[in-house]
C-alpha cells in the first residue's frame, strides 16, 4: 500500500534532478531506489509500488531490479545492518571467527534480526577492503577495518548509544613510511 509511504515535494524535485542526469528515465531506477531506501530504510513491495508510480515505470520492472541487487532490502531490516565479509582474504584472516563471535554476542544467525529490531547480521561477499581484513560494513555505509573482538564490542556499544563509525582512511604504506611532502 503506497499510502503509508509517500514522496513530498522536495523528494519529487530531487528525483527530477536524478532523472535529468540520464538520456532515458529508466536509467534513474537504481539511484531513485537508493533515494527511497535512504528515506524509508528499505525497498519492500510498497516502496517498490511508490517508486513505480512516481517514475511511471511498471512495478514488475522495479521489483526485478530490487531483487537482483543485494544492497536493496526487500523487507525492513534492523536499525543497524552489519555486513561481515567472509570472502577470500577475509576468510583466511578470520572473517568467519568475527561473524560467529557477532552471532553469539547478538544471539542471532547471519540473515536474522535481533528481536528488538536493533541489529541485523549478514555474511557478505568481498567489499573491496581485502588488505584490512577481517572487516565489516555498517548499514551500506562506513567500513570498520581490522576487526577484533574488542573492536566488535565497542562498535556494538557505540551503535546502541547512537554513535556511528567515522570514515577511516586506510593510508598507503608507502605514504606512511615515505616522505609526506
Amino acid at each position, binding site marked *: 500500500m503506497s499510502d503509508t509511504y509517500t514522496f513530498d515535494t522536495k523528494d519529487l524535485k530531487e528525483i527530477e534532478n536524478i532523472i535529468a542526469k540520464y538520456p532515458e528515465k529508466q536509467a534513474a531506477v537504481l539511484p531513485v531506489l537508493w533515494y527511497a531506501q535512504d528515506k524509508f530504510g528499505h525497498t519492500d513491495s510498497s516502496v517498490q509500488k511508490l517508486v513505480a508510480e512516481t517514475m511511471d515505470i511498471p512495478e514488475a520492472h522495479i521489483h526485478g531490479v530490487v531483487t537482483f541487487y543485494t544492497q536493496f532490502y526487500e523487507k525492513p531490516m534492523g536499525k543497524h545492518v552489519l555486513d561481515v565479509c567472509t570472502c*577470500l582474504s577475509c576468510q583466511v584472516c578470520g572473517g568467519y571467527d568475527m561473524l560467529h563471535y557477532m552471532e553469539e554476542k547478538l544471539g542471532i544467525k547471519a540473515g536474522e534480526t535481533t528481536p528488538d529490531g536493533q541489529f541485523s547480521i549478514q555474511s557478505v561477499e568481498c567489499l573491496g577492503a581485502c*588488505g584490512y581484513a577481517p572487516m565489516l560494513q555498517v548499514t551500506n555505509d562506513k567500513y570498520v577495518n581490522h576487526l577484533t573482538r574488542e573492536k566488535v564490542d565497542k562498535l556494538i556499544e557505540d551503535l546502541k548509544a547512537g554513535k556511528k563509525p567515522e570514515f577511516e582512511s586506510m593510508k598507503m604504506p608507502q605514504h606512511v613510511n615515505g616522505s609526506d611532502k
Partner: protein
Amino acid sequence: MSNDWKSYQPLLIPAIRDLHEISVYEKNDGYQALKSILSDRKKWSPENVIEEVKDANIRGRGGAGFNAGLKWSFMPEPDGKPRYLACNGDESEPGTFKDRKIFEYNPHLFIEGAIIAAYAMQVDAIYVYIRGEYRPWVHKLQQAIDQAYEKNYLGKNIQGSDFSVEMYTHMGAGAYICGEESSLMESLEGKRGYPRVKPPFPAQRGLWGRPTTINNIETLANVPMVIKNGASWFKTIGPDTHPGPVLYGISGHVNRPGVYEYPAGMNIMTLINEVTGGIRNGKKLKALIPGGSSTPPLRADMLDGVTMDADSLREVGSMMGTAGMVVLDEDTDMVDLIWRISVFYHHESCGQCTPCREGTGWLEKTLHKINSGDGEIRDLDLLLAICNRMEGRTICALADAAAWPVRYSIDRFRDEFEKKCKKTVYAVA
C-alpha cells in the same frame, strides 16, 4: 629490475598531502595535460591523442589487459548523435581494493584522464559506475567532480574551447556481475545486470544503443602522464610488453598488507618478502592468487623469478587480473578456500546461461561435499568435468572465472583435495 623499486616515486598516487583538493592538484601540474591538448589542437587532434595512448600500450587494469588506446580507436566516426564513456569502478573481484585509493587520494588524476579520453573519442557524457558498497568513496569522487565543474574542466566549453563534456557518478547496488562491461551498461540503463551477447560490441552499440567505451578507473588515471611525458617515456616504466605503474593490492597473510604503487613487472617474491615485510608470524608461504579470485592460484615453488606482468604470469599458468594479490601461508586450507570462492561465483552468477547457472551450483555443492569430508576421489573428476562444460560456453567470462580456480587448484594442490576425500575402495568386478 633489481632494487630500482626502492627509489621509485609513485606517479598515480604520490605522497602529497590533500592532493584530492583541486587547488593542490593544480599546484602539482594537475590538469596541465588537458590544458596542453586544448591549447594546441593541431598537435593534439583527437586522432593524435588516440595514437599516443595506443603507442603507450596502457594495458587495461580492469582485468583483461587490453591496450586502452587501441580500444578507443574502435569507436566509429562521430555522426552528431550522443556517444559515451563508461568508467568502471565496480571493483568487486575478491582480492581487489585499488580503485578506491584513486577516488580517495587522487580523484582529479582519474577525472583528467577521463576528460582526455572523452576528448579523444569525442564523447558527450562520462558515466562513472561505482559499486554501491563504495558509497563513502562515491561522495569523495562527487566532491572532486563538483570542483572540476567549478573550474570549468568539465561542462560546457571547457577552458574556453569548443569542447564540452559532462561527468556523472552512478552507484551500483551490490552485484559483482555489473563489473562485466555489458552488464555494467544494463545496470546503468536501470535494469537487472544481465550481460549482453557480443557482438555487437560496445563501440558499435553501447549505452542506449550508442557507441560506448568502457575503461577501468586505474587505466584512465594513467592517461594524463602519457600526454604530459609521452608514450616513449611511459614505456620506460616496467616491462616493454606491459608498461607503466601498477597499483598492487596485497592482502592475506603478509605483515604489511595494503595498496602499493610500483612499476608493472615487479618480482613477486620481492613484493612478498620485502615490500610487505614477508609472511606474518614467521610462517612459510604456501600459495599466491596473483590478480583477484578468478586468476589461477600458484604454489610457492612456482614463483621463483616470476614477475607481475601478463607474459611472466601466463608462462607459469596464471594471469595478471587486477593485481589484487592474495598471499596464503602454510596453514591455509586450500579446499576450504576454493569452496568459498565457488560460493562467491554461484552467488554472483546472473543465471542467464545454463552452463554457468548450473555449473557454479554444482561446483559449490561438490566442493562442499569434499570440504566436509563426504567426498570421494571420483568427485575430483566430476569437478573437472563440470569445468569442461562451463569454460568458453557462456555469454560472459564469469563462468570461466568460476571454473579456473577450481581446475588449477585440483591440478596444483591435488594432495590436499585427496586427503579430504573418503578412502573408498571399489570392488573389482
